[in-house]
């Protein structure tokens, strides 16, 4: 029988596109992207589904395309979620070590994590992630594995990402409608960061900004762990909308103009340059000023970075990001965006590259797919963990099956 346990699928229902990425995990854990399906998304605004019918169709198209490309059936996915309702915060759990010899045992660690995850959330909210940060033993910071250490007071910080249950369920239900299991939901920003950052960069401290169609998700790593996450419900759609409003053109035209003439900083050469578009008969309809276009765009994008910078400053994280800022998502395609972001964030800014994943080069190189690829990455981590845990059970199972085979 075809065993698909090493197939990992990431599905992102984004504002501008629905995208399914199929990855294959080799026995040694290496990931290989073997399939990619995408469809223009029509039922999503600001990262959240507003028209389930449309969204359903788009998801179907993307999944079918991915399946045919990968030559595998998709039965379960890691689903990316985002939206303005998603929030992140840090929480600390405390646990006194009660054993006589003050040695910290596995149980103590489990208990303290459990304590840290016991969070008071509003009733309608649900935890998406509770990501462990560092342990503290008697106030000593930066301990990654306290088992076997001596201490009387064990603490742990977790970063909790939570969102509105109903809104999260919308996407999950939609996927389940296709008889596809949702293994886990993953915050898109987190997924993107997994695709982009190497361990070293996480250790140094890095900020990943995923500028999508409807939302801008960002994640901060400090000392190898996630310290901060955030979602701004502003994205490429807003840029197009601003252009449509400011230049008085239809939205579709604004979208096109953005792709053709857009720039994050106002080009000297563009100042005063005019673009005329014509109707099907070749008659001019309207002339727009490229300088204005870029100015509107630049202001909007700058504001996004300003809001993020403010948020980080409030969280007191600005000084820890030594690896710099990595941009991804469709917004990272805007020309000169790094040049715009650098003075605002006051850090080196670069466009993120997906790393240590092999496979379809066309997919890997595009910033739009970072989150979806990251979802596959996330899945592979989960798989590896599961494998590690059930090694004993598997060993027994393997022994029995080999016995059976022999007979």
């Amino acid at each position, binding site marked *: 029988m075809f065993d698909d346990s090493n197939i990992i699928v990431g599905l992102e229902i984004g504002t501008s596109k629905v995208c399914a990425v199929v990855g294959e995990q080799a026995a040694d854990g290496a990931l290989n992207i073997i399939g990619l399906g995408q469809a223009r998304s029509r039922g999503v*605004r*600001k990262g959240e589904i*507003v028209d389930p019918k449309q969204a359903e169709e788009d998801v179907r198209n993307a999944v079918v395309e991915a399946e045919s490309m990968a030559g595998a059936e998709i039965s379960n996915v890691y689903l990316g979620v985002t939206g*303005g309702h998603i929030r992140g915060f840090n929480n600390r759990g405390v646990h006194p070590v009660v054993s006589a010899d003050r040695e910290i045992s596995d149980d103590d660690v489990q208990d303290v994590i459990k304590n840290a995850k016991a969070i008071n959330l509003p009733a309608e909210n649900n935890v998406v992630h509770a990501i462990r940060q560092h342990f503290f033993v008697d106030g000593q910071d930066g301990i990654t594995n306290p088992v076997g250490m001596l201490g009387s007071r064990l603490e742990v910080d977790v970063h909790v990402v939570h969102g509105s249950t109903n809104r999260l369920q919308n996407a999950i239900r939609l996927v389940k409608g296709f008889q596809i299991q949702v293994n886990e939901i993953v915050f898109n920003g987190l997924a993107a960061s997994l695709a982009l950052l190497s361990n070293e960069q996480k250790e140094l401290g890095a900020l990943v900004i995923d500028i999508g169609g409807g939302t801008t998700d960002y994640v901060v790593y400090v000392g190898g762990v996630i310290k901060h996450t955030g979602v*701004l*419900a*502003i994205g490429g*759609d*807003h840029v*197009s*909308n*601003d252009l*449509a*409003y*400011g*230049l*008085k053109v239809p*939205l579709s035209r604004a979208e096109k103009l953005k792709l053709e003439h857009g720039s994050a900083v106002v080009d000297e050469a563009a100042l005063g340059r005019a673009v005329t578009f014509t109707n099907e008969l070749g008659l001019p309809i309207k002339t727009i*000023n490229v300088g*204005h276009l870029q*100015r*509107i765009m630049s*202001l*909007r994008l*700058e*504001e996004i970075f300003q*809001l993020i910078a403010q948020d980080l400053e409030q969280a007191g994280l600005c000084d820890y990001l030594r690896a710099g800022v990595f941009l991804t998502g469709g917004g990272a395609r805007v020309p000169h965006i790094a040049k715009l972001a650098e003075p605002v964030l006051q850090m080196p800014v670069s466009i993120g590259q997906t790393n240590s994943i092999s496979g379809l080069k066309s997919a890997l190189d595009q910033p739009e797919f970072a989150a979806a690829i990251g979802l596959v990455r996330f899945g592979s981590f989960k798989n590896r963990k599961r494998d590690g845990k059930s090694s004993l059970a598997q060993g027994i199972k393997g022994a029995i099956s080999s016995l059976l085979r022999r007979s």
Partner: protein
Amino acid sequence: MNAKSETPDSIPEAAYTPAIKIFGVGGAGVALLDTLNAVEFAGAGFVAIDTDAAPLATSSATVKIHLETKLLRGLGTGGDPERGRALAEEQFSTLKSACDGANVVLIIAGLGGGAGSGISPVLARAAKETGVLVLAFVTLPFACEGNRRQQQAQQGLEQLKSVADGVICLPNQKTFKLIDDNTSVLDTFRITGGLLVEGVRGVWRLLTRPGLIQIHFDDLCALVRDRHSESAFAFVEASGPARSREAVEKLLAHPLLDEGRALADTDAVLVSLMGGKDLTMADVNRVMEQIGRYCERAQIIMGAAVDTEMKGRLSVTLIAGRNAAARTETPADSPESSVSPETAPRSGIRQTSPSSSLSLEQREHLTARHAARGRRAGNKLLQTQLPLAIISKGRFDKSEPTIHKGEDLDIPTYVRRGISLN
């Protein structure tokens, strides 16, 4: 009546301490006056003015003026500012004589009722005629108190602004940010009163305590004079080793400063720091740097003073004035720019109509912002434009608005910032 306060010997006495009279007008004003009438304000003259005899009787003010005619039959103005005004006009000379001998008159009133809205403008005028500086601290009623009171309060405010040198106005509605569901009505009023009292205290200190870096009396006059549109005001106190940072944080979170936004729109800021002898230059620098960052365009007047009682503590008084007339006209001729160059005061005609999906408060906020941005050319006598430019949110018309700190981020950035394209 000079206010000589307990100042340490090592510090030179202020060259000039003005005589201050504090007037409480109407029920709210008299009540607030009582909370003020403490040791700290030794040297000030307290005058309570009301049409109702009962609150006056219990007031601890040194001078009480009971405005009364047969017309009212001892029942007060009945919430009608016209009666209050008529009464005050009648007793104009009494009011004027009450202001005699002062350099500064502080008027405290709760607008919206009969006495506060009716009498205080007349009192301010009386004070002006005796040639003193008039600063008014007023509260506006809660929205739930009804339209009529709001209108009366707005009228009173406008009148007051046209006569007083400076009006510092605290809309009670803003204090909703400070209270939770369980706060009692009594506590709520105590909080609003407390904010106002803090304001008075701040100005008082500013005027009476000797400064190392002196803010001269004239500076205050210059700042509040002719800046009628809106003076924002905040007084915060912090203690402990991180006091400067704490003070700045409190300041930026202050409801009267709209979380720091008021600072961005001002063109003159007066900051007075007061600390114990342990006040360090680093503290002063840190506070000023932060404030300066928020109001880059503004002229900043800074003062610092030392009070031995303030050991380990730091108090910051901030007055942000906006000179409506002094703003330079920037052409807003771009057809895309929805911000009209005409002005509308906070209460005036809406220039833009934000989407109806917003809550009332958000909408008010937006219009206030737009009004602030658009206020370039004028004073309130200018004819306002009809709200013709409506900002459409296009694609996001029907989706949930993205509100960040009261700003609707779905509206194009350049519109919100009032940047013209040409």
